[in-house]
C-alpha cells in the first residue's frame, strides 16, 4: 500500500511543477480549502488519500497512554452541482503502548449545499452520514472497529469577508461544522454505553490567494497558501453510562486546536496541522494532522470530476 502512495505522490509532484492554481469549494471569489479538523462547507469531487493523523494520548493518572498513527481516505462525488455523496474511513490505525492495529469502519455521507451567495462568499450545507458497524477490523482484532452503526446529521457554514470595505479584513474567512452522532446501539454486550455525541468545530482562515488577486500582489511562493487556525471539540450529551473511577469522566469534552497551513495547487491540496489537545482526556502533547487532497474536478473535468447530472453551463451564466 505504501508503495502505491509513493507512486501517486511522485505523479502529483510532477504536476506541482507544471501549472498554477486553484480549486476547491469556490463561492464567488472565495476558495475554501478542505480543512483538517472539520470538513469544508461545500460539495465537491475530491479524493483525500491519504489523511494522516498522529496523536499521543494520556492515561487518567497522567502517564503516557497509547500513541496512534492512522492513514485514512475519503472519496467525494457530486451528483448535481449542489448535492454530493462520499465514502471514506479513518482507515488503518497503528497503535503503540500497548501495541495494536486495525481498520476503522466505512462511513458514507450525503451532503446538500442548500444556500450559496457568491457576492457574500456565503455557503451553508447539511449532510447525513452513516458509519457502518463491522465494516472495519473484526472483534477479534487487536484494534476492533465499532460493532454498531452511527447516524450523524451535520451542518456546515462558510463565509468569506471579501465584501468588507477594510482591505485588511478581505482575505479572511470562517467555516464551521456541527455534528450530532447517534449510535444505533446504546448498550454493548459487555455493558458499556455508546453515548450520543455533539461535535463542533471552526476554522479562521487567511487566504493569501485572495490577498494576491484582490488586495495586494504577493511573491509566487506565498500566493498559493492559506494559513488557518482551527479546532474541533466533542461533548457526550446523552446515554453517558456510569462513571468509571479509573477512567476519564464520560462527560468530558475532548478536542484539539492548532495552527494549520494549506497549499492549494492546480490539481491537489496539501494541508498540515499541529494538533494541540485541549485537556488530558484529549491527549498528552502536540500531535499532527496532514492530508493530500486530489481535486478530481480539475484532474478529470469531463468524466469522474463533473456532476452526474448538471445543466450545460452557458458562458454568460453567473456561477
Amino acid at each position, binding site marked *: *500500500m505504501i508503495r*502505491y*502512495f509513493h*507512486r*501517486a505522490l511522485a*505523479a*502529483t509532484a*510532477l*504536476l506541482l511543477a507544471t*501549472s*498554477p*492554481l*486553484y*480549486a476547491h469549494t*469556490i463561492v464567488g*471569489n472565495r476558495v475554501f480549502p478542505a480543512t483538517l479538523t472539520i470538513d469544508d462547507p461545500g460539495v465537491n469531487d475530491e*479524493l483525500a*488519500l491519504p489523511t494522516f493523523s498522529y496523536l499521543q494520548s494520556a492515561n487518567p493518572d497522567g502517564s503516557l497512554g497509547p500513541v496512534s498513527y492512522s492513514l485514512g*481516505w475519503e*472519496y467525494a462525488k457530486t451528483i448535481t452541482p449542489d448535492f454530493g455523496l462520499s465514502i471514506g474511513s479513518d482507515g488503518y490505525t497503528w497503535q503503540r503502548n500497548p501495541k495494536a492495529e486495525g*481498520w476503522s469502519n466505512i462511513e458514507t455521507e450525503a451532503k446538500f449545499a442548500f444556500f450559496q451567495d457568491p457576492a457574500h462568499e456565503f455557503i451553508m450545507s447539511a449532510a447525513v452520514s452513516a458509519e457502518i458497524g463491522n465494516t472495519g477490523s473484526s472483534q477479534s482484532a487487536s484494534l476492533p472497529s465499532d460493532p454498531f452503526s452511527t447516524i450523524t446529521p451535520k451542518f456546515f457554514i462558510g463565509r468569506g469577508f471579501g465584501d468588507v470595505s477594510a*482591505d485588511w479584513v478581505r482575505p479572511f474567512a470562517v467555516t464551521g461544522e456541527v455534528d450530532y452522532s447517534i449510535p444505533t446501539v446504546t448498550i454493548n454486550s459487555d455493558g458499556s454505553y455508546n453515548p450520543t455525541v455533539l461535535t463542533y468545530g471552526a476554522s479562521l482562515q487567511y487566504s493569501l*490567494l485572495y490577498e*494576491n*488577486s*484582490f*488586495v*495586494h*500582489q504577493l511573491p509566487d511562493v506565498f*500566493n498559493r497558501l492559506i494559513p488557518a487556525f482551527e479546532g474541533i471539540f466533542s461533548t457526550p450529551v446523552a446515554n453517558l453510562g456510569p462513571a468509571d473511577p479509573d477512567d476519564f469522566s464520560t462527560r468530558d469534552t475532548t478536542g484539539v486546536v492548532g495552527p494549520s497551513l494549506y497549499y492549494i495547487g*492546480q*490539481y491537489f491540496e496539501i494541508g498540515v496541522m499541529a494538533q494541540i489537545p485541549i485537556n488530558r482526556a484529549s491527549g498528552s502533547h502536540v500531535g499532527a494532522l496532514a492530508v493530500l487532497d*486530489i*481535486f*478530481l*474536478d*480539475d*484532474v*478529470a*473535468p469531463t468524466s*469522474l470530476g463533473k456532476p452526474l447530472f448538471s445543466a450545460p*453551463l*452557458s*458562458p*454568460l*451564466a*453567473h*456561477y
Partner: protein
Amino acid sequence: MKRIFSLIAVGVALMLLDGQAFAHAFLDHAVPGVGTTVAGSPVELELTFTEDIVPAFSGVHVATEGGAAIAAGKAVPGPANTLHVRLAHALKPGTYVVTWHVVSVDTHHTQGSYKFTIAP
C-alpha cells in the same frame, strides 16, 4: 482492502498524468501590480489569469477611485492567459480601480477588482 487502495492510487496517478486544467480563472498577477504604487503612468494594463480564458466573454474597465471611467481600449488577449488594455491618455497621479470579468474555458464566470496608485 489493500487491493482497493492500490487500484485507487494507480487510477489517480493515471488521471493526473493526462489531466488538463479547467478550474475557475482568478487574477494571478497584473502590471501595474495589484495594490502597488508605481512612479509614472503605464501605457497599458496587463492582467494575467490562472486559467485559459475566453476573450470574447472577458473584459476590463478602469476608473478613478471616485468612480469616473477612464478611456481605454478593449481588452486584447495576449499569450499565456493575459489581457492587455491600452490607456487612451496618460493617468494623473492618484488611485485607480481596475474591474475585470472573465470566463474560463470551463465556462465558469469570475469577476473582481483591484487598485493601483500612481505616485505624485
